[in-house]
């Protein structure tokens, strides 16, 4: 009797689902961050209120746990697949021009992902950890003043540059990742493949431009 040990496509499905959830999360994250574009006083009050509201909500808590699991799952399964692929690849060519036939970002999702992982560690430490586990000063409404942390962080040029580089990596990662996930899920009809490709481009441009604009806006304000 046949033993079903196939894991390749199942692993890809895990990467696709976690990746798409992270794509969805980025939309919510960007929408929340748009409040930073408000006039300073209003932005401080509203952004701090919003951050406070999020941390108290049970539904948000569940989603954040799904988010942590997705991040870890996405990275771990990417690592598993990459290791397996390296084994499958075997010996290298002496003269290798295979990169001629495919897009640069599609071949380097691992490098882009590693940049994003390093970025996330810094980002979690400076915002997530600072907000959750340290005693921050409070604003007029009595909410922890996360807005001040944002302003202080982005006042440093090197920090802005770090974020901008990471967002460029994010853009290239999303450009391939979003469409690749649709393939893994089995979208094969040419009409919808084209639609998803256009949607993927639009999504990537909006998300990347949106996130890139925030540190620049706050730094040069």
């Amino acid at each position, binding site marked *: 009797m046949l*033993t079903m040990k196939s894991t*390749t496509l199942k692993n890809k499905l895990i990467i696709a689902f976690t990746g798409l959830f992270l794509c969805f999360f980025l939309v919510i994250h960007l929408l929340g961050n748009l409040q930073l574009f408000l006039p300073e006083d209003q932005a401080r009050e509203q952004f701090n209120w919003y951050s406070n509201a999020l941390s108290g909500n049970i539904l948000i808590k569940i989603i954040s746990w799904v988010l942590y699991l997705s991040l870890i799952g996405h990275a771990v399964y990417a690592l598993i697949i990459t290791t397996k*692929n390296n084994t499958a690849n075997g010996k290298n060519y002496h003269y290798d*021009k*295979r990169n001629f036939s495919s897009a640069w970002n*599609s071949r380097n999702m691992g490098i882009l992902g590693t940049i994003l992982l390093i970025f996330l560690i810094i980002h979690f430490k400076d915002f997530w950890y600072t907000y959750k586990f340290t005693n921050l000063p409070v604003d007029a409404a009595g909410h922890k003043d996360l807005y001040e942390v944002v302003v202080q962080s982005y006042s440093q040029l090197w920090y802005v540059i770090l974020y901008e580089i990471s967002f460029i990596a994010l853009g290239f990662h999303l450009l391939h990742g979003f469409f690749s996930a649709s393939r893994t899920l*089995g979208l094969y009809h*040419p009409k919808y493949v084209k639609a998803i490709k256009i949607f993927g481009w639009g999504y990537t441009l909006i998300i990347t431009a949106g996130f890139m604009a925030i540190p620049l806006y706050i730094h040069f304000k």
Partner: protein
Amino acid sequence: MKLYLKIWRQLNTSSKGEMVDYEIDGVTEHMSFLEMLDLLNESLVQLHERVIEFDHDCREGICGQCGIMINGRAHGPLKHTTTCQLHMRSFKDGDTIYIEPFRATAFPVLRDLKIDRTAFDAIIASGGYIGASTGQAPEANSIPISYETVEASFDAAACIGCGACVATCKNSSAALFVGAKITHLALLPQGKIEASKRVLTMVNQMDMEGFGSCTNTEACEAECPQGISVLSIAKMNYEYNKALIFKK
């Protein structure tokens, strides 16, 4: 024209190979790439040296036997072309050409440029056929099927199994090959019956043979001599996901 060749020489699967330099003169632009290698082999015979072994059969671009990595690209610099259909007019006098076998853990080198593609046969044997009894040849029009479906199935069936997709894939994935076979059969009324079982067993066999996983770089489609669409990989994923959900 005169060419400087760097060719992979390896006595057998267990021996360690190396790149060996050769010079060849008198190559004309009308020669096919394989004829150029024939010419080199003739000179090796006269020198009583072991000839360079490579796979070939029809030399018409339809059998899928030939397949060499030429200057770092599967089947050489042209898109959608087999090695035998590549001609020396694609090169110029004084060029250095790197010639290596297709590489993947699942494709061990047998000798020089010859590789063992039994892994592909094992995938086909695991389910790449129609097992349902179809009886004697029926009246052709008794099974309604649209022209577009027939064409799409035939486009996928055009795969010659040369292995360029695996050779050019950074993950050595056989997804395009397996996707083409799955798509070819899943589109036809006779093939639909066993579609779920087929996709599960063939993907399982693909894994067991040690191929990597597809990361949708689409390099395979660019190098495929038959121009098999990467959408057949998406179709395979679709059939696989459907089988995972609905299998009993």
